[in-house]
């Protein structure tokens, strides 16, 4: 596993690595369209229920939302340094930055978990489950978007954490050589992690900061 195998349908290793990156970007392109569907529905319902969305969003904690934004941004920085360490062949540094990225990702989910617990305790749930304060309009619709969008984003973070654990195991097993697979794999997972960060960059103002 330490030496990268050149598959028969590629002329050189560089071309093989570029093809892997192209595949990752193609996946991200369809993820963009997947999340866009949610953002579009959000835009339509927000224009249909303007007062609902403004009243309901005030039930969220701007402090926790902003804190979580910073946690994810720092995790992206750490992920970028992981890719750099992998390219430079610095195995221990790679494992350390991957672990930091994963720790920040866990921190994000823990903070999100506290927020969810607070919403559930106050009956701020989607659709017919809503039993919270009598806010103007249809807060049940706002919370359907809130849980749907942050839930799908959280699922992406969870998948990212599993991928990071897999990479950390690879780095610790000493599979990192400049000609091996690991640097390209770290870069691919990095692209995914940064994309998940970008989704949150848009969710944060739309859910927490609307006025």
């Amino acid at each position: 596993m330490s030496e990268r195998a050149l598959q028969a349908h590629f002329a050189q290793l560089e071309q093989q690595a570029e093809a892997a990156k192209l595949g990752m970007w193609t996946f991200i392109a369809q993820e963009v369209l997947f999340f866009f569907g949610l953002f579009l529905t959000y835009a339509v319902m927000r224009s249909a229920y303007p007062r609902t969305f403004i009243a309901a969003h005030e039930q969220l904690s701007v402090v926790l939302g902003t804190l979580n934004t910073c946690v994810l941004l720092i995790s992206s920085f750490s992920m970028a340094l992981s890719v750099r360490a992998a390219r430079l062949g610095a195995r221990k540094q790679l494992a350390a930055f991957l672990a930091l990225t994963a720790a920040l990702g866990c921190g994000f989910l823990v903070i999100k978990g506290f927020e969810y617990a607070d919403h559930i305790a106050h009956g701020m749930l989607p659709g017919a489950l809503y039993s919270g304060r009598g806010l103007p309009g249809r807060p049940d619709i706002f919370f359907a978007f809130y849980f749907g969008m942050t839930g799908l984003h959280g699922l992406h973070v969870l998948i990212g954490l599993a991928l990071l654990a897999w990479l950390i195991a690879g780095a610790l097993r000493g599979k990192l050589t400049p000609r091996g697979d690991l640097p390209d794999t770290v870069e691919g997972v990095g692209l995914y992690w940064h994309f998940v960060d970008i989704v949150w960059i848009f969710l944060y103002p739309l859910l927490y900061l609307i006025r």
Partner: protein
Amino acid sequence: MTEHATAVTPVRSYALVLAALLVLTGLTAGVSFLHLKHGSMIVALLIAVAKASLVVAIFMHLHKDARVLRAVLALALFLVAVLFGLSALDWSPRDGDFEHLPAQSSVALQARGLK
């Protein structure tokens, strides 16, 4: 191969991008407390686009990666624009403010939308 291995972005560039991202986050949070009437959503989205562009260009290396990768992202954004445009054409003539309607009146929503 060795060329590829040594061509890494300096840590300083990543650190500057992180600093810019955190400043922009503080800015967008601060602006939201100014209670701008109609501009707030536009400002928030412009800041989000700026942050996303920084992540894509530097963290995801798109500023120096192969052009075909930029083309893939451009295609996705083009499709987003087309789908948003078509949906806006469908939605905007419908005077869609449902807020005064009682809950659970989906029939009334439909009647209003299809009028």
